């Protein structure tokens, strides 16, 4: 039998005064309220009989006093929480890891607590069962770790911290949480372990690591448990029922921009066959639905065709209820078509300009042509630094400094990092990367190139066309921008100062298609095919027109957040906890213009696959799930409280039967 004080030390002083107060009240004469009556004659006769039994009356009063003192004594005893533990031992160090990822929202039915609540309950039980010298630490984790409370022996603080834990929509990554947990158990050394003069900065403090999770994460291999003794408590029932949308995207038909194709993948992670339907909503209105019938463990694809104006907001919902609701809906957005601004600098290239004046290309944006001399002007420098253009095409010329925009060099090289071989010819294309968006729909093996140079792009570049002499069309990333370099000219200067076509590409059908692809991909018009999609909790890297000073992001819950636009138009937006469609608006005025949309979806098959695992792997160590029989503390306070209530009732009855 031991006692645990439920009150801070100072609170016992006023509590100790209570019985003294009761005794004092009995010594003091009761202050009675005066009341004028016609005559006390009848009252005196009434109480005369009672005075005869004054001895019994005194006893009754004493009985009340006795009952009241007994009540206070039992209440104090209950506050001391007498109880006993199943076992006793040395003080322990415990670390509780609470999985707060999306899969922990799963619940077997509406009236049942979620896995997260069950895990919290189990941790609360463990905290309740802590012995006097035990200390515990509380960490909640999803794709990041959140230390709810450092090591402490104060149960109340731990329970308060536990009550603040909230389940998230995020995927799971345990590594950070494990590192936080290992901080004290496995202290780092001050320098290299092999150094003879090395001193360890702190003593290792072994700890018991309790992991409360459904195990919906991949094995953590890059971690050494060291002094941590792990215990895995698997949360969740063996029979689950979950159908999830694991992918959903929408794209415009390049041929007919009004037509939108939406694709979704739906998986059945439950143990039984599912027959349900998926409903597609466009701007909140039901536009299409399809039946979904899947065996357990199956995946299926859904495709929808619909007509949508620019700036469409799509939502796909599964029409069945299951254990995990967050993956039953998915969102996709189609941004309004952006006007691409293209600047061509060069001595003049009719084939390039013509290709940009096709009906399709005109829809993408505007083209401005300047001569090579323009490069030396201040206007160009200012324009390039302000990123006013989405794409600059340098035709047989090159700037001295790379502008902070995407570029396309024709017959010239960027001033840095790129090199090229000697001019040789003829050039025969032998390999074309057709998977790249810029090379789609191109048939180039019949291409004739008179002469060209083999490119030596910087590391990380993608060769789009490789000829017998080497790569002749390469795409290389540069500080968030991309440079496309073509190793041959379209138009070459002849020895007599005239111009001659270096290739027959401009007369082939693939040329305008290639230029169109370049405008879409490098110009940024490709963004229109589908809005940015990120996982919950990820930072959305938004890019807007840098002429805007301020934008507003409207979240799915209706929260509006204003953000300053950086000089380059980049806005990092981190408040992406909720799944749904986020709208980026141009200003905070009464009628803000939509700028773009992005979506947050839980497309994570590990989170959607909610079948709890029975074994996890941490640092190549398999840890089987255990039923943690917490060394439960048997407590008496509840019974004491019931007894105190009983005594209170008796006291009340005695008081009401009390005579004068």
């Amino acid at each position: 039998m031991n006692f645990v004080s439920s009150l801070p030390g100072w609170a016992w002083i006023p509590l100790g005064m209570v019985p003294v107060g009761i005794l004092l009240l009995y010594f003091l004469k009761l202050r009675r309220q005066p009341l004028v009556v016609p005559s006390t004659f009848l009252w005196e006769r009434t109480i005369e009989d009672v005075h005869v039994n004054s001895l019994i009356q005194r006893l009754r009063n004493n009985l009340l006093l006795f009952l009241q003192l007994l009540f206070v004594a039992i209440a104090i005893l209950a506050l001391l929480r007498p109880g006993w533990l199943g076992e006793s031992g040395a003080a322990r160090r415990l670390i509780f890891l609470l999985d707060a990822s999306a899969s922990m929202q799963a619940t077997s039915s509406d009236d049942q607590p979620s896995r997260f609540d069950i895990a919290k309950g189990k941790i609360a039980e463990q905290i309740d069962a802590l012995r006097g010298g035990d200390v515990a630490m509380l960490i909640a984790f999803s794709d990041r770790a959140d230390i709810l409370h450092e090591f402490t022996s104060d149960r109340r603080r731990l329970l308060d911290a536990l009550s603040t834990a909230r389940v998230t929509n995020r995927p799971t990554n345990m590594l950070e949480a494990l590192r936080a947990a290992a901080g004290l158990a496995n202290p780092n050394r001050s320098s290299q372990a092999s150094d003879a003069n090395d001193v360890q900065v702190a003593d290792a403090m072994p700890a018991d690591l309790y992991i409360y999770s459904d195990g919906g994460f991949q094995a953590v291999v890059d971690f050494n448990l060291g002094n941590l003794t792990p215990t895995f408590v698997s949360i969740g029932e063996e029979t689950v029922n979950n159908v999830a949308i694991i992918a959903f995207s929408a794209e415009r038909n390049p041929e007919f921009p009004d037509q939108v194709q939406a694709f979704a993948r739906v998986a059945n992670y439950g143990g039984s066959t599912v027959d349900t339907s998926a409903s597609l909503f466009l701007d909140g209105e039901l536009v299409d639905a399809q039946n979904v019938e899947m065996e357990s463990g199956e995946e299926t694809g859904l495709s929808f065709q619909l007509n949508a104006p620019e700036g469409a907001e799509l939502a796909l919902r599964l029409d069945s209820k299951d254990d995990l609701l967050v993956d039953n809906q998915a969102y996709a957005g189609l941004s309004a078509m952006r006007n691409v601004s293209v600047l061509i600098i060069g001595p003049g290239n009719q084939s390039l300009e013509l290709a940009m004046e096709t009906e399709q290309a005109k829809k993408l944006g505007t083209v401005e042509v300047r001569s090579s001399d323009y490069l030396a002007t201040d206007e160009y420098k200012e324009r390039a630094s302000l990123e006013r253009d989405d794409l600059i095409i340098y035709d047989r010329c090159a700037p001295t400094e790379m502008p902070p925009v995407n570029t396309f060099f024709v017959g010239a090289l960027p001033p840095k990092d790129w090199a090229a071989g000697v001019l040789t010819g003829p050039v025969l294309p032998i390999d074309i990367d057709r998977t790249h968006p810029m090379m789609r729909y191109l048939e180039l093996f019949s291409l004739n190139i008179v002469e060209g140079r083999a490119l030596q792009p910087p590391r990380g570049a993608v060769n789009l066309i490789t000829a017998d002499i080497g790569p002749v069309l390469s795409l290389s990333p540069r500080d968030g921008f991309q440079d496309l370099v073509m190793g041959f000219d379209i138009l070459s200067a002849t020895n007599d100062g005239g111009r001659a076509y270096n290739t027959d590409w401009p007369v082939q059908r693939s040329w305008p298609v290639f230029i169109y692809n370049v405008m879409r991909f490098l110009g940024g018009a490709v963004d229109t095919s589908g809005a940015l999609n990120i996982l919950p909790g990820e930072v959305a890297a938004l890019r807007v027109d840098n002429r805007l000073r301020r934008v507003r992001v409207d979240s799915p819950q209706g929260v509006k957040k204003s953000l300053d636009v950086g000089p380059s138009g980049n806005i990092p937006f981190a408040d992406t906890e909720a799944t749904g469609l986020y709208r980026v608006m141009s200003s905070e005025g009464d009628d803000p213009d939509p700028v773009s949309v992005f979506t947050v979806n839980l497309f994570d098959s590990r989170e959607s696959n909610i079948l709890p695992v029975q074994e996890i792997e941490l640092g190549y160590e398999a840890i089987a799930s255990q039923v943690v029989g917490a060394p439960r503390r048997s407590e008496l306070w509840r019974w004491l409280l019931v007894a105190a209530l009983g005594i209170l009732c008796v006291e009340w009855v005695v008081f009401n039967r009390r005579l004068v």
Partner: protein
Amino acid sequence: MSATLRPSALLTPELLARLERLELVSRKVFQGRMKGERRSKRKGQSVEFADFRNYVSGDDLRFIDWNLYARLDRLFLKLFLEEEDLHFYALVDCSASMNFGDPTKLHVAKQLAAALGYVGLCRADRVRVAGLGPAGAHAPVLRGRSSMWRMLDYLDELQPTANIPLAQGVKEFCLRSGGSGVVLLITDLMDKQGYEAALRMLVGRRMDVYVLHTMAPEEIEPPITGDLKLVDCEDGDETEVTVSRHLLSRYRQTVASFIDQAKSFCAQRGITYIRIRTEEPVEQIVSNYLRSHGVVR
């Protein structure tokens, strides 16, 4: 009916109209002072035959029964009952304890005294409505319907301030009024020295005594609870009580026993005991209650 032209707080015109049809009942036959509508112990002039007696010289020849003389050849005098007035007294307890209830017990007592007094006035009885205590000294003797306003004015002036024992009040009344008759004692009987002496005194004066015991509902079922210090409004006596359900039931028993004692005391002495609850309207008390108890008919 000119008396009813002025409105009064004590009696409504409807009640007055009803009262005019009533008559005070006396279970005893008293000697009156003046000619009235009541049978008297005295023999006198009326249409109701009483007795014969031998003629003695000096008797009024008009009353000789000549028919009897013809048959028996002896002179007999034919005696008739005399009709005289009835002495009616209404004594109103004016102690402070009467100032409780809604309406107050004193108000109800005044109403009853006025109502029955008016009945007496209508029947040409000798009516005296008096408050116990100092106010009784200048209580007017009234006769005839026209005296109603004097009676009402007197009653209006009665204040619940005369905190004297009931026996003393009755004694003072007895000393002031010589004759006997019907006496109506309207009181709450709340006298720590007892009401018995007062009633005995009235019975001893050969009065036909009616006790109208007025009680307010608050006295029968007190709406109080908790720890209280009860203060007697008359003598300031303090009684500390903790009013619980148990105590209230004891109190009710005490009230019931008090009423029973009063009833039995009255019954033994030929006094009519009538309990009046102040929440009942006076019209109802007079027309139903007092009628059934034989106070009026």
